């Protein structure tokens, strides 16, 4: 629909005002992380007069941010790989196996969309201790994989159900096993749906603070979110450092978002739009 003049004006005013409200804090965050403390207070909104990397240096050297990044990357990559692999296998069975068992399991998985895993934290703490994984980042991986199952089975099962059935029949007649159909036909076709699931879980896992807070204390196992919370407490009076730490945590996802905005939006709303 095309808009008439006054409507167009109203649209631009409302959306511009909100855009300023969104962009202004992010601008303040990034621009001030390059300024010395004094200038942050004197001129909080302008570009830096004297450009400094002190904050970043401190975060990198004192705060071991390099380590936190590597830890978070390892956890996110392994958890995502497992979610996509075992989630897509399950989804294939849920979509193609006609039986009351698969119907029940489908509902069982989907119920997890509405029930936050955090409510089971106390028991998970005991389980992680029993597995001797406390204080390591390995403790996070099985929890994130379990947490990713509802959305993975939901999105991927719906996707497989929409693939043309003749394709599967033809492959079966040619003597292909279920595993061959899954790995050679379904997986390659599923790429867009896998991307949606990957992005949804990547943002959740990368930004998760709750489970690192509960499971991990040791410095060498910290993730970015946990590192941010501890460093921010330390640097409360040193604003250059505090803002540098926050920028370091925010920028990787923000930059990825700017490159892949459409996929990110699709990914993050995956659970809802289809439902």
């Amino acid at each position: 629909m095309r808009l008439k003049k006054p409507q167009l004006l109203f649209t631009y005013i409302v959306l511009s005002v909100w855009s300023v409200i969104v962009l202004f804090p992010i601008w303040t965050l990034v621009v001030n992380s390059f300024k010395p403390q004094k200038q942050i207070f004197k001129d909080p909104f302008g570009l830096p007069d004297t450009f400094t990397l002190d904050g970043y240096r401190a975060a990198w050297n004192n705060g071991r941010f390099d380590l936190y990044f590597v830890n978070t990357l390892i956890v996110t990559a392994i958890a995502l790989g497992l979610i996509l692999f075992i989630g897509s296998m399950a989804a294939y069975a849920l979509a193609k196996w006609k039986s009351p068992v698969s119907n029940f399991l489908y509902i069982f998985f989907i119920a997890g969309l509405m029930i936050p895993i955090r409510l089971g934290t106390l028991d998970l703490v005991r389980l992680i201790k029993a597995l001797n994984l406390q204080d390591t980042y390995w403790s996070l991986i099985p929890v994130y994989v379990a947490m990713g199952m509802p959305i993975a089975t939901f999105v991927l099962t719906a996707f497989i159900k929409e693939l043309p059935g003749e394709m599967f029949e033809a492959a079966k007649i040619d003597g292909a096993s279920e595993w061959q159909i899954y790995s050679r036909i379904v997986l390659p076709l599923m790429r867009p749906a896998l991307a949606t699931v990957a992005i949804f879980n990547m943002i959740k896992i990368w930004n998760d603070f709750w489970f690192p807070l509960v499971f991990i204390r040791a410095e060498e196992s910290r993730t970015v979110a946990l590192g941010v919370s501890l460093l921010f407490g330390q640097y409360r009076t040193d604003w250059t450092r505090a803002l540098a730490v926050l920028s370091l945590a925010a920028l990787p996802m923000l930059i990825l978002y700017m490159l892949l905005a459409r996929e990110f939006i699709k990914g993050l709303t995956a659970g809802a739009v289809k439902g």
Partner: protein
Amino acid sequence: MTRAQEMFSVKNRQTITWILFLLPAVAMYLVFMAGPLFDSLRLSLYQGEGYNPTTFVGLQNYRDLFTNPLWREKFFNAFANTCIFFAIHMLVQNTLGLLFANLLSSEFRGRNFFRTVIFAPATLSVLVTGFLWTLILNPNWGAVNKTLIAMGLREFALPWLGRENLALPVISLTSVWQWVGMPTVMFLAGLMGISDELLEAARIDGASEWNIFWKIKFPLLKPVIGVVSILTFVDNFNAFDVIYAMAGAKGEPAYSTDLLATLFYRTGIAGEHPVGIPNMGMGAAIATMTFAILMTGVLFWLYISRKQATE
């Protein structure tokens, strides 16, 4: 082998294949999600120090939670705060989302840019958002207060996070800032599904945009409004990070921003002053109550949406 036996064994083998496909996912989900959730219910019937509450006490934890004035006050304070937190999201976040979506559903230059910007904060960590706004709202530096003073509104330059009646709404609005992109995109998807001819016909009949919104778009959006509401509800009754970042685990000032999740964290995981030892049984009771509240909400939503679908 007879033909029937052969068919049976083929079918059996097929079933085993499917079970193997499902096994890893079911095992992970069962052991690390469903199991702990249900075991937390059991844990709420026990008392004891540290990580292994072993004394079975029946419903004593719940009795304490609802009758011991100390616990009752904490629980109902956190419950009321969580309700306010949720109400502000429903009122501000979802109304703004509906407004933005309605504006974004028409064609104009820059539409994708605005959509991208509105959604951007949703990719930030909640913790980063919380810390960032703590700095911006800080009374000493206070980009917000500085701006207000520059505009000649000195009397509005308040200690935003320091006042009991102000902190919770301000933190809720920070969270709205972060998440408003979600309802916007969902409503936008819903609006795109409404046929253009229908809207054109109404316009030709001389209906105003205001009337078109309320008489045509809004009723057709009802299912999406339901989904958005229930997702907001589940997320809000589970919110923790933003309070931890902006008001600490105790929900400062004076527990005025304490939510169910922060109370759960202090009771069951961190351990509260002056004891400092986690009370897992009571923590599990709080988690179970939160679970019950969530289930009530979700079942209510299912009931309403079923009823609307059959009408």
